[in-house]
């Protein structure tokens, strides 16, 4: 059964020599679903590989997750109204119901890899089969929420071009299985398969025993202390003491200290602080590594994430200098991958972290790594003409745009300074827009649209310059595109 050859996934699909192997795995499929990590690591070599189920513990995890949602949904006021016993009973009933549904959905969910596609089957009444073409894969992420960490499970998320949101979160798989599947999907997603070359996942069955992310070449590790300090230097954390003081004063003056009021206040505070706290939890232990052509990001305290982003899928890199960080000289780096529309409400799931906090020198190094040949400090941006002052009296010196050798860079923001870097090869279209006020001043804005994120915009350029810029961007995008 220990086949050394799960590689060559494609050419072997209809190879007849291994029909026996092919028929062996489906048998256990009916009985105890092919679940646990140990056995099924070598996939069937020939024919269509059997459909596999998610880990049998997943319904339990979904149920536990829904318990949290239910409790939050019932809220404090319900608790106070019905008393603890009823509250617990209601929560249990609802959570049990959710768990039953999760079991049903688990029973009907399956996935397998066919050729260069991942197929995911779901649904009892409304059947849904999604075929995810792997050549369109933009990034893979292994997420391990707290509960999943305790149970040794992981969720696999795939980002595909054109998907409004994350496609096919496979929740949950065994850690080893998730790692192996990720390896395999990335190998399949790579540039067109070269049957001759060494298959990139020879160790797919060896890897799972170690951490989910093979180390690669470490690029950077963010010190947790810096992360904490950086999140204390956010407006929310800064203003919190005033908020607390205000609320306490309110309470003292009214003299009413009901449990509900206090609990609600604490909830509200938590809401305000949610973003910085989340950032700290999410970016804890942030590790960046590079492995061949992919970027590997690991982060998270309660919920660890391991993202794998092929470098050639990076659409834009954004640099942010928040106001309060400037004293420290810190910056934040983000990257945009195709496949994320802004529509996804929960931006935690965007694989856009490149550096949660770091100094100029670190940022420089990482940018050079992600976009070879780009020096962050060497990106010169020219100011718009002085008459743009009429449109942005304070911030006109904060905007700018520049053409570098390989990238288009646009700067904006007075308080939170931002720089967006778009490689010419990633420009999808160029737009020139001119509002009524801009027309009076003979100004225009040039946008470079990219597949992920908002692209970059050269704000309020002189009209002639805007035409020139648009032409130049188009020409450079064309040339860069053809050169690839």
């Amino acid at each position, binding site marked *: 059964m220990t086949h050394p050859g799960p590689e060559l996934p494609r050419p072997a699909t209809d190879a007849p020599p291994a029909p026996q192997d092919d028929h062996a795995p489906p048998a256990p499929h009916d009985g105890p679903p092919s679940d646990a990590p140990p056995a099924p690591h070598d996939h069937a070599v020939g024919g269509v590989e059997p459909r596999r189920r998610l880990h049998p513990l997943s319904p339990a995890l979904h149920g536990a997750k829904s318990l949290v949602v239910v409790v939050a949904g019932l809220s404090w006021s319900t608790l106070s109204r019905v008393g603890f016993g009823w509250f617990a009973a209601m929560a249990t009933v609802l959570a049990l119901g959710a768990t039953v549904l999760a079991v049903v959905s688990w029973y009907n969910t399956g996935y397998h890899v066919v050729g260069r596609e991942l197929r995911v089957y779901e649904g009892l009444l409304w059947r849904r089969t999604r075929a995810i073409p792997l050549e369109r894969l933009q990034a893979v992420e292994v997420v391990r929420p707290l509960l999943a960490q305790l149970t040794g499970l992981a969720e696999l998320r795939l980002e595909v*071009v*054109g998907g409004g949101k994350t496609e096919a979160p496979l929740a949950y798989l065994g850690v080893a299985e998730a790692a192996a599947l990720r390896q395999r999907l990335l190998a399949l997603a790579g540039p067109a398969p070269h049957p001759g070359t060494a298959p990139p996942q020879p160790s797919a069955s060896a890897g799972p025993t170690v951490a989910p992310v093979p180390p690669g070449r470490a690029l950077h590790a963010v010190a947790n202390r810096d992360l904490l300090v950086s999140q204390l230097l956010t407006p929310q954390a800064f203003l919190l003491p005033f908020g607390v003081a205000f609320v306490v004063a309110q309470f003292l003056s009214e003299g009413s200290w009901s449990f509900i009021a206090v609990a609600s206040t604490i909830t509200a505070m938590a809401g305000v602080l949610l973003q910085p706290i989340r950032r700290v939890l999410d970016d804890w232990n942030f590790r960046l590594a590079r492995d061949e052509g992919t970027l590997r990001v690991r982060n998270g305290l309660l919920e660890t994430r391991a993202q794998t982003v092929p470098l050639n*899928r990076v*659409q834009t890199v954004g640099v942010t200098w928040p106001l309060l960080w400037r004293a420290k000289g810190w910056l934040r780096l983000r990257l945009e991958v*195709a496949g994320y529309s*802004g529509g996804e409400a929960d931006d935690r799931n965007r694989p856009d972290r490149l550096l949660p906090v770091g100094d100029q020198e670190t940022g420089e190094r990482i940018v050079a790594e992600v976009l070879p*040949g780009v020096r962050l400090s*060497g*990106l*010169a*941006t*020219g100011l718009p003409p002085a008459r743009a002052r009429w449109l942005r009296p304070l911030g006109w010196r904060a905007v*700018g*745009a*520049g*053409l*570098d*050798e*390989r990238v288009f*860079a646009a700067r904006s923001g007075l308080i939170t300074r931002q720089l967006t870097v778009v490689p*010419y*090869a*990633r420009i*999808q*279209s*160029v*737009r*020139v*827009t*001119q*509002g*009524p006020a801009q*027309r009076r001043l*003979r100004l225009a804005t040039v946008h470079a*649209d*990219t*597949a992920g994120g*908002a*692209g970059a915009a*050269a704000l309020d350029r*002189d*009209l*002639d*310059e805007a*035409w*020139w810029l*648009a*032409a*130049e961007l*188009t*020409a*450079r*995008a*064309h*040339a*860069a*595109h*053809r*050169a*690839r």
Partner: protein
Amino acid sequence: MTGEPPGGPPPHPVGPHPVGPPPTAPPPGPPAVAGHPASGPLAAYPPGPLEPWPATVRWQSVSTDLIWVELLRLAALVGVVLLGLAVGWAVSGHWLFGAALGAVVLAGAWRVVTTVRAVHVWGYAERENDLLVRHGLLVRRLSIVPYSRMQFVDVSAGPLERAFDLATVQLHTAAAASDARVPGLRPAEAARLRDRLTALGEDRAEGL
């Protein structure tokens, strides 16, 4: 700047180019751009609506029947609003409804004028490597979409458009912000444009 066309006020450098070696890398340095059709007559650009590179671009305008489509749409909208306001006025008799009625009529009249002008402004041009679309009166927009970046082409025609024998062609790229929609085309022209775009797109396609 090295890449400026001779004769003409220099289009400003947008930022100093790195002093590094001239175009060894794939993206061309400025000299390569000098040959680009776009940079030639730039200086001769007349101040007007978004109409760049007049000598090299042949703008095609959309059918003026689009005016009727737009006006009918506008009339339907204004009609509904007016009806609501009139009923409100009749029932309550408050003078505010009357004022609103007048305002809506005025706004409608103004929209009629701008619609007529906006349709005349709407235009597209097929260049060697990209499609240009311009539109908008108040906020003027020009989109440059390289054929190679095209993901798919939509041809659509609503009932109102069909009544006037018109169709809309829309070019989609992987970027959500791309805005290349050409309304008011004759079906034959729409089909031609679609076929040409798909052919060119296939020729040059590289996707992302």
